[in-house]
C-alpha cells in the first residue's frame, strides 16, 4: 500500500499526547525529520503555535492550502475557505473520538438510560428474529 498521508505544510494533524492532546492543528513548517511547527489556528482549535515532535501527532487525510510559515490570519482564512473544521467533524475518526469522550463523561443516570435503550433494542431484534425463524 502506498503512502497517502504526508507530513507537509498544510497537513491537518491530531495531537495525541501532551497538554493539547485531542485537538487538531495544521503543520505550518517542518523543522527536521523529527519535529514540525504547528498552529491551530488558535482561535478555531485552541492549539498555540509551537514546535511538536511527530511522535506526538497523528496525520489526518485533510490538508489546507497555505504557504510555509503562514500567519494566523491567513491560516484562519484558508481554514474557513476549505471548511476544514466541519470536514473533520464529519469524518468517522472524529465521530468515534467524540463518542468515546461522551461515553467517558456519562453520569450514572445517563448510563441507566443507555442500559434501558440497549434492552429495548435487543427486545425488538429478538422479536424480529422469532418472526423470521417461524
Amino acid at each position: 500500500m502506498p503512502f497517502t498521508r504526508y507530513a507537509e505544510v498544510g497537513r491537518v494533524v491530531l495531537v495525541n499526547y501532551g497538554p493539547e492532546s485531542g485537538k487538531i492543528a495544521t503543520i505550518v513548517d517542518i523543522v527536521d525529520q523529527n519535529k514540525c511547527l504547528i498552529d491551530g489556528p488558535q482561535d478555531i482549535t485552541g492549539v498555540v503555535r509551537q514546535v511538536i515532535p511527530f511522535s506526538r501527532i497523528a496525520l489526518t487525510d485533510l490538508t489546507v492550502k497555505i504557504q510555509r510559515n503562514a500567519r494566523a490570519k491567513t491560516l484562519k482564512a484558508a481554514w474557513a475557505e476549505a471548511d476544514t473544521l466541519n470536514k473533520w467533524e464529519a469524518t468517522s475518526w472524529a465521530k468515534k473520538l467524540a463518542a468515546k469522550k461522551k461515553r467517558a463523561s456519562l453520569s450514572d443516570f445517563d448510563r441507566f438510560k443507555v442500559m434501558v435503550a440497549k434492552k429495548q433494542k435487543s427486545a425488538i431484534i429478538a422479536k424480529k428474529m422469532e418472526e423470521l425463524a417461524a
Partner: protein
Amino acid sequence: MTVAGVMRQYQVVGRKAATDDHPNPEAYRMIIFAPNAVIAKSKFWYYLHQFRKMKKTTGEILDCVELTEKNSRTVKNYGIWLRYSSRSGTHNMYREFRDVKLTGAVSQLYDEMAGRHRCRPRSIQIIRTATVGAKDLKRNNGMQFAKAGVKFPLPHRVSSAKRGQRALSDSTYSTVRPTTFFG
C-alpha cells in the same frame, strides 16, 4: 560545565577594576551560551582571561543580561562555528541546525557533539553563530528540509511503550497484532 536542559543566551559585559592610574578601563562584551547566569559569568572570565590580561579577582562584571529570541514563530537555519577538543587534539568545526530559536540550536549542538563525538560540554567553545539563508546551507540534512514543498510520509510508526499510551491498554491480551502503518 553541566548542560542540563535548554541553554540560554547571555550578554556579559566586564572590565578590569578601576584604579587611580586607569579610572576608566575598556569594557569587553561577550555573548555566552550557558544554562544559567552564574555559569555565564564564570564562562565570561574563562574566555576573557584567555584573550586579555584580566581575571575575576582583578576585574568586575558590569552587566549580565539574558537575550531572548526576537521571533520564535519561524524556523530558521543556524550555522555554528565551534572549536572542540577530542581525545587526540583540538579541531574547528562548522555545523548547521534548523530550529526556532538560537538557544534551541545551541542545545542541539551540545547534544549532537556528545552523541557523535563523545565530546563533553566543557570541551566545546562556540566561536560564532549566524542565521543562514536556505540557499547558503552547506549540510545536506538541513538543506532537504529547508527546500520548498518538502513532504514525506511517517513510515513504521511505533508507539513508545515507555509513554504507556498503548502498552497499558484496557486489555492485557489482544488477538490482533499491532499496526505500524497509518497511511
